[in-house]
């Protein structure tokens, strides 16, 4: 019987990471979709960069930003008594870095596809920007956003490089499924590696099919 705890840890880390990336990603998408934003494409490129940069580059930045010697890292350690890096919290941050651009891009596209007349009508009916966003734009964009969230979840579930650099490979603490597969291969436990690989593949396929189903059905919903 293989050890399923890395898989459970992956779910936990990916779930928290996806929630965080969704909140931040939707807020960023809302800002990017707003008219008259200065330097829109620069912001967009900065948010997209994690999709194309090597994980080592992202890991390096995160270590510089959050490491025990950094000001954020020191403040966190003083407040909570433990560092961010090489803990489960570090694994969550590593996983959300990959999910964020996927969610932000999907949310931006979905928000931009909402007919501006609905937002205009809401504004003339007395709704401020925030109320119009939460009561009109967001519900009308929800399918597209949800598709992005699913992709982000799949990405968070599969993160390897950034997690290894920022959170390490600590059994029971930061050894997620993808790290456990690496471990199993290196130590010759082929059966374990194969089982985990098949499970991860099945999960990824499920998520991708759900996401494309959501995107395709988008027009019929409303």
């Amino acid at each position, binding site marked *: 019987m293989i050890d399923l705890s890395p898989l459970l840890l992956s779910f936990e880390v990916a779930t928290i990471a996806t929630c965080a990336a969704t909140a931040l990603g939707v807020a960023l998408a809302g800002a990017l979709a707003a008219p008259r934003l200065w330097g829109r494409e620069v912001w967009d490129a900065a948010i997209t960069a994690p999709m194309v940069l090597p994980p080592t580059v992202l890991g390096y930045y995160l270590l510089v930003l959050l490491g025990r010697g950094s000001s954020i890292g020191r403040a966190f350690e003083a407040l909570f008594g433990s560092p961010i890096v090489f803990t489960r919290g570090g694994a969550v941050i590593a996983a959300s870095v990959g999910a964020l651009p996927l969610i932000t891009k999907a949310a931006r596209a979905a928000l931009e596809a909402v*007919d501006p*007349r*609905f937002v*205009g*009508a*809401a*504004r*003339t*009916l*007395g*709704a*401020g*920007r925030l109320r119009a966003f939460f*009561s*009109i734009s967001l*519900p*009308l964009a929800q399918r597209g956003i949800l598709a992005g969230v699913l992709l982000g979840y799949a990405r968070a579930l599969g993160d390897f490089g950034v997690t290894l650099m920022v959170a390490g490979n600590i059994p029971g603490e930061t050894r997620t499924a993808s790290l456990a597969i690496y471990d199993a291969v290196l130590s010759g436990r082929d059966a374990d590696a194969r089982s985990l690989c098949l499970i991860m593949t099945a999960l990824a396929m499920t998520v991708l099919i759900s996401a494309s189903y959501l995107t395709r059905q988008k027009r019929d919903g*409303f």
Partner: protein
Amino acid sequence: MASESHLQARVALRRIAAEPSFSLDVAVDFGPGLSVLFGPSGSGKTTLLSALAGLLRPDAGHVRLAGRVLFDADAKLDLPPNERRIALVFQSLALFPHLDALENVAYGVPRDSVKKERRALAHTWLERMQVAHLARRFPHSYSGGEAQRVALARALASEPSALLLDEPFSALDRHLASELSAQLSEYVSSVRLPVVLVTHDRGLARALGAELTLLNGGRVERTGLAREMLAEPENPA
């Protein structure tokens, strides 16, 4: 000049991204009651309404409503749409597809009362517009006339100080259009607020018999009484 319940504006717009050759430069003064803004498509009617409602920012000019300054380019004053108390009914109606009729109408009811009262008020407006039976139904299931009534109820429930209607009856047949416009005229005469109705339909403009502003190529060509200005029974512009 007396400004009680008048919607007065000068709106100058030099260029619009979608149509670089178009420019708008008009001065208008809509008094209480129904005014018709008439002109061929592309004459700037919808653009003017958007500027009045605050959805589009003019390059120069001002917008005043009942003595309140809503926009003044020189003073760099630009009230957001939600603070203007100008209800705008789009040609597409823009009923929120994810809300039922009651929620659509309640959306605009001023939020100084509790939710239950707002919904009760919204229901009263649906009854007044004879569409109370749609309260729990969603916009995709309405007929053209029903959608129009819900949109009007929503606009009026927001207790606006001015009401702008962009081609409100264009999707309806002649009979329904005249029935609805009669109801609207009746309502308008009872509340004394400026109601601006945009149309390019001569028949409707004449039937409404209101003060008419003729817009052409982004300029005001003439103003006067609809019956006199559109006397000759030509084809609709």
